[in-house]
């Protein structure tokens, strides 16, 4: 399908959504205090970032501090969760012995929703960055581990045979064959982890810290500032989107070969 140029195709649904939303508020279908119009949100958002108009009152100009706090937590949690998860996934994928020893534990713990860890993490770490980074790390560990294991197990046996035939030792087999072959799955795990990290940073900031976009969102809700709530929501969505794009860009850069091997969608 190619009725319009690609930029038009990309812009169509967000523009339509904003127009309907604006219209609903404008004709009085919903009250402005319950659901502020896109233009109101934009106005508040601008002040939130720049502090120029005081439209966001007590939140005026605080955006960068909150955003930086959230971004730091997401990446700190993501870093340790994904690093450990990928390592665990590799070990489990490589060895049936390690799988038998660790996999039952991982499968049970994985099925405890990460949000159920909030009370204990507060008891362990108190209020602050630590419980947030802990929760995000825990949440990102599992998708990374499970997808890495899957990726390692999926490696074509002919390739590992060929490498051994040519004289590859264990380390060369891992670095030159198994890791690159498992990379598509590892990157899928990272992408899922990044999504989960942004969910958990909001949960953590509502419950465990006094800064960040999640805290801003919850605090504005308590003060009936739905325009600020929506601006915070959109900020989180936007940062989540950018993080996802970064992971996708890295993936596409590393996995250019994979696009040639797979279906990859039609234009």
């Amino acid at each position: 399908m190619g009725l319009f140029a690609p930029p038009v195709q990309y812009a169509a649904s967000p523009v339509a959504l904003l127009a309907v939303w604006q219209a609903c508020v404008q004709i009085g279908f919903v009250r402005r205090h319950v659901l502020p119009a896109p233009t109101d949100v934009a106005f508040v958002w601008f002040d939130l970032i720049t502090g120029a108009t005081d439209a966001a009152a007590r939140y005026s100009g605080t955006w960068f501090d909150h955003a930086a706090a959230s971004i730091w937590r997401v990446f700190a949690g993501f870093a340790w969760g994904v690093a450990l998860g990928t390592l665990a996934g590799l070990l489990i994928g490589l060895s049936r012995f390690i799988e038998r020893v660790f996999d039952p534990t991982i499968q049970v713990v994985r099925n405890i929703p990460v949000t159920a860890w909030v009370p204990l993490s507060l008891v362990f770490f108190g209020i602050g960055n630590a419980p947030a980074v802990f929760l995000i790390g825990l949440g990102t560990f599992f998708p990374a581990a499970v997808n890495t294991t899957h990726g390692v197990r999926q490696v074509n046996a002919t390739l590992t045979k060929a490498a051994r035939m040519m004289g590859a030792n264990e380390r060369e087999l891992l670095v030159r064959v198994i890791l690159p072959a498992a990379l598509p799955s590892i990157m899928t795990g990272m992408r899922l982890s990044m999504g989960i990290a942004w969910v958990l940073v909001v949960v953590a900031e509502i419950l465990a810290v006094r800064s960040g976009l999640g805290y801003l969102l919850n605090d504005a809700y308590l003060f009936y500032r739905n325009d600020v709530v929506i601006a915070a929501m959109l900020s989180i969505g936007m940062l989540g989107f950018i993080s996802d794009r970064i992971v996708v860009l890295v993936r596409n850069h590393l996995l250019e070969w994979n696009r040639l091997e797979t279906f990859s969608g039609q234009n």
Partner: protein
Amino acid sequence: MARISLRHVEKTFASRHGKVTALADINLDIVDQEFITIVGASGCGKSTLLNLLAGFDTATSGELTVDGVPIDGPGPDRGVMFQQAALFPWLSVADNIAFGLRLRANRHKASPEIIVERMLKRTGLLASRSRRPAELSGGMRQRVAIASVLAINPSILLMDEPFGALDTLTRSIMQEFLLEIWEEERKTALFVTHDIDEAIYLADRTVVMTARPGRVREIISVDLPRPRRYDVRSEKCFIALRDYVTGIVREEAIRGAADT
């Protein structure tokens, strides 16, 4: 003296229906620079035999030796070509050929770049050097596979139906190409196939296997002059050999089908 020697080799697999004997009492000697093909009906254990020689699998009993040394795992002295060309999809053609040369096990004096260049030239892949495997045809993929195996300079070539997935025309071109390279290098070669034409065309000796459990039914000397061109197939002695081998293979295939 035999380069490759098999003595009373037996291989059994455990399956849901109990033990399955894939190979029973295989005895075979392959001399230096000999081209041996193994032909048999599907399921006769010919690929299993090749896996044992490659060192990917171990025999249940019996002895397999290369130059008198028992086979213990795969190694660069025995280059293997698989039915599906074993190419690393993330590497270019040139990097695939260089793969074995960049491993620590590589003992070549020449730099990988020089050998890769030579291999690209020999296999007619110079123009495709930076392409990825996904961009190549089946015949070209097997060319790259041949080049990457030859690059590590094994003294023995083990081939498991490498042209089985190719169309008839490409297959016959690849057979000729393989012989051309073999005439130059004279490596000891063992080639597994179910294609009787191919088995005779390539071989000094053709080993015909029985239906499961696989045994050596008969070893047939192919005394056609070398170098062979593809049109040797229409000569009387080739046709006579083919008819003879076809007769035995058919007999075994029917017997195998009746047993299972």
